[in-house]
């Protein structure tokens, strides 16, 4: 992290590193601020801290400064509820909070004080820890321990691209947001970081001040395209479009390709625990099956066990907070993603935790969802389990309809679209909603009572 920033600042010191609604900061300025932060952290004896900060212009030097000092930052969502924050911070042992908010605890340090601290920066720390909280929708909060030096392995040799502008569509507290940050710093590009980070804010940033590259979830892309359609705006050309964080529905992939015909379209597969695992740019759903481990391909980093994808990652986490390092003898880890090998592709079927048990039949919501979102007049849809006394659960669908769509006709079209699926897979509850429930930019498909 700090090394990437130093490399970019040495190459093009006056090139803009971060652009927000407040202004623009050069690589030289961000590096100077990061050194101030490192000096301040060392002087105050802060070795790990929570960060609650929405402004990327403050966040980037805070994270880089922490890396230089060897202190472990952990970001929380900027709008996190104060009571919930205190509970989670207590569980993760965060006594020190860096934030401009004043409702978060006893030891709250103003980030501006750290950023403006005049002091001698320390030599780069050997270990550069980073804690990333998972966006899991169930259970107690978990946080994965990472090291910036391990994570940045994927961009260590990256070609410098000063002037290329990347939109920050993810929260920088998410692994995907961290990936974007590292890619920008690793290539000497510019981070365009509006806040809030909703699809409509992203669309506004595409139009002004303008970006070249966008990485976001399929759900985010779907809403960005819908927003552009309903506002009747002409989308500017992009160089790079990246989709990740969820399985990519085939209809969305083609919608993105036709909206940005000159862009290179990549699908990335990464997780909080595993870091970046795979990336494909051939425009087809899924991952190439030639990554599968076998006797003939002993270097393969993927394998399928009982329908679930297992990964051997070189850039994964060290372990969860409060648990020992996970590096096992063979390095394989289960991902929780259900897959099927179809021809030369590994195709995603959904999350292990999303499977709906309908009267003993295991239903994967994703294929159902893909059928529904391909229906004309459906802007977006989510498929999930709904508790039912008769069958344990039924398949439920929530649909965001296009403005001019007739709901009865749409229901009939949805029924027709799923007719050839097994009967247990048919949505038994179809409702129309104004917006889908999402978390961290991803569609929620867990079972509802």
């Amino acid at each position, binding site marked *: 992290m700090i090394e990437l920033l130093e490399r970019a600042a040495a190459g093009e010191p006056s090139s803009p590193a971060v652009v927000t609604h407040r202004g623009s900061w050069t690589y030289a300025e961000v590096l100077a601020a990061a050194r101030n932060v490192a000096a301040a952290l060392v002087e105050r004896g802060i070795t790990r801290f929570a960060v609650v900060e929405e402004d990327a212009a403050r966040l980037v030097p805070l994270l880089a400064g922490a890396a230089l000092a060897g202190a472990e930052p952990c970001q929380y969502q900027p709008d996190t509820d104060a009571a919930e924050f205190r509970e989670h911070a207590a569980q993760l042992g965060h006594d020190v909070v860096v934030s401009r908010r004043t409702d978060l605890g006893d030891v709250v340090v103003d980030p501006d004080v750290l950023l403006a601290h005049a002091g001698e920066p320390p030599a780069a720390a050997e270990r550069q820890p980073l804690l990333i909280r998972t966006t899991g929708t169930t259970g107690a909060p978990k946080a994965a321990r990472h090291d910036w030096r391990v994570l940045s392995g994927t961009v260590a040799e990256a070609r410098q691209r000063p002037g290329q502008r990347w939109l920050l569509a993810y929260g920088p507290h998410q692994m995907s947001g961290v990936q974007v940050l590292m890619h920008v710093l690793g290539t000497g590009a510019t981070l365009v970081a509006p806040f809030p980070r909703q699809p409509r804010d992203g669309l506004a940033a595409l139009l002004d001040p303008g970006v070249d590259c966008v990485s976001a979830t399929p759900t985010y892309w779907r809403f960005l395209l819908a927003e552009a359609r309903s506002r009747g705006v002409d989308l500017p050309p992009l160089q790079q479009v990246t989709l990740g964080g969820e399985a990519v529905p085939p209809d969305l992939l083609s919608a993105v390709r036709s909206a940005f015909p000159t862009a290179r379209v990549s699908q990335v597969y990464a997780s909080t625990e595993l870091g970046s695992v795979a990336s494909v740019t051939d425009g087809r759903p899924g991952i190439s099956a030639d990554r599968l481990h076998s006797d003939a391909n002993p270097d393969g980093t993927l394998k399928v066990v009982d329908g679930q994808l297992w990964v051997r990652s070189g850039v994964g986490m060290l372990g969860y907070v409060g648990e020992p390092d996970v590096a096992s003898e063979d390095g394989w880890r289960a991902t929780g993603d259900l897959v099927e090998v179809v021809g030369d592709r590994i195709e995603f079927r959904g999350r292990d935790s999303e499977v709906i048990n309908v*009267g003993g039949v295991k239903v994967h919501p994703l294929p159902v969802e893909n059928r529904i979102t391909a229906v004309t007049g459906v802007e977006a849809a989510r498929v999930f389990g709904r508790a*039912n*006394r*008769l069958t344990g659960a*039924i398949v439920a669908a929530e649909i965001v309809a296009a403005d001019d769509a007739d709901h009865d006709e749409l229901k009939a079209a949805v029924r027709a679209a799923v007719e050839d699926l097994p009967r247990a897979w048919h949505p*038994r*509850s179809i409702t129309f909603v104004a917006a889908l429930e999402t978390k961290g930019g991803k569609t929620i498909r867990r079972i509802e009572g």
Partner: protein
Amino acid sequence: MTADRVRGVIATFLTGAKKAFDPELPGDTDLYGGGLELDSLEAAELSAMLEDEFGTDPFSAGEEMPETVGEVLAFYEAAATA
């Protein structure tokens, strides 16, 4: 009044499920074999539609599962007069 609304939901469900039925939906119409021929998935769907409309449904909340249209109506009549 409620009975008409309940019959309306049942009719909407049966139409969507492409089932043949007497539009009057007499109370003695059997939901399962010999009547509407609902299987468990269809009954589950009907229960979800009734719950969406009325906030509760006889398949989930009742002590005994309804077996006829009349028993579905009776559940809501009992709820209305309770």
